[in-house]
């Protein structure tokens, strides 16, 4: 459990740093992020997750929102 608390604290501290807008990328500089390979493939992730937790004791834990072209 200590490991998780340390991890959580790191998460919060890092989140604080990044959200301070240390690097603001202009909306028109999202060309590379808009590339399809810069987002995880939803179906592959779901299939992998299903296989791994059928064979291991851990599951999920990941999410993905944001990134991409940031359009509209």
């Amino acid at each position: 459990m200590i490991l998780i608390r340390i991890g959580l604290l790191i998460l919060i501290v890092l989140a604080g740093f990044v959200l301070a807008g240390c690097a603001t990328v202009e909306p028109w500089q999202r060309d590379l992020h808009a590339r399809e390979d810069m987002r995880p493939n939803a179906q592959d992730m779901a299939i992998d997750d299903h296989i791994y937790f059928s064979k291991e004791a851990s599951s999920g834990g990941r999410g993905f929102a944001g990134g991409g072209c940031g359009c509209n």
Partner: protein
Amino acid sequence: MQLKKPIGATLASATCGLLGALPAAPVAAQEAPNWEVDSSFLYYGEDAGRVMDGSLTTSIRRVLDEDRSFTLNLTLDALTGATPNGAVPANSVQTFTGPSGAQDYRIAAGDPPLDPNFHDARVAAAASWQQALGNSMRWTAGFSGSDEMDYLHLGVDGRLERDFNRRNTTVFIGGAYGRDEVSPIGGAPIGLSPMLPSVGGGEGEGEGDEGGGGAGETKNVIDGLVGVTQILSRRALVELAFSYGKSNGYLTDPYKILSVVDPVTGRPVPGPVGSGLNLYLHELRPDTRTKQSVFAEFRYALDRDSFAVSFRLMDDDWGVTSQTAEARYRWNISADNYLEPHIRYYKQSAADFYRTVLFAGAPLPQFASADYRLADNETYTAGFKFGHRTERGEYSVRLEYYHQTAKPSPGSAVGDLAAFDLVPPLNAVIAQFGYKFKF
């Protein structure tokens, strides 16, 4: 039999499909396609006569306008083969009672005890609605369900995303609730009770009169996820997520047992008088489980290619802690072809109540399971994905090799058992063929 691992992860799988893996942002496209269809056929096959699985998955998304879309996922799964039942090998023939209605089976001397009654078919469906809320927020809500011979899952999930800093930062929060019902053939056995011979010639309809425990056992799972995605530069992105899950109810695997052996010779001891079986106890796990995990991913775009690395740390109150590291490199060979090699490393520690074998005469533990999935294990995965785009859509092939080794609990290899591989390694091949298109 569960095609899905019942350690509170069944829901997590469905919800992680919905919570995590399906982004709510609209897809950048040349024309304005309203429909996106993504289908895969998957083959999963373990060696040494173990599990084989074939499945078909389809995801259909209808984009109604720039701010709203609807997604439907459907999976059909068929499972066959044999899986370790939790007992250890012996120098004599071992007979095991099949779950009521299924065949009793015999394992030859020296062979790993695999339960061959492992055929099942599953249907799973999930639907979700994604909608923008104002300029910078999006919400998603969905429900999911899956049904197999002895396992029913129903769940709901939701997520909210908010952009900041001109969409350079996105915070997301999600939750899911699931209710699963396990209806093992013959009813759920009483935990840590001895395996008994089948009653009356193996034709039971599985209504749960024998073996106690009732016809259906339920399990409730709640999952929460909170995270942030931050664009670091024109090329780099980082994502951090924290998730928390709590399950309670029936978390035991009703088909798994533990061998009870002599503490000096390692040989099976006789079961209940007149049963003609060795002594095997049905496993028993706690009825609650709390898990937490921290996840981080870094993605980087080069001029032509890109790569992603991720780490996950998991911790729960069953004593399992795990570390996962994964890396992918996308080689965009041309506008129409790509190759994506992938590697993954996973390590977990054993659950507190994991026991490879129990010893006659020792005090009975409160909980015990010999399921290799709860053991101290390490897995390596290596593979690649190849994709080819045509005018209409994209074909892809994914091939992965999965290798898992596990350690028996300390002190298990007594007497005869020292000569056996108590928890044999697992080798599996994963082959996936996919096609996706828009119209």
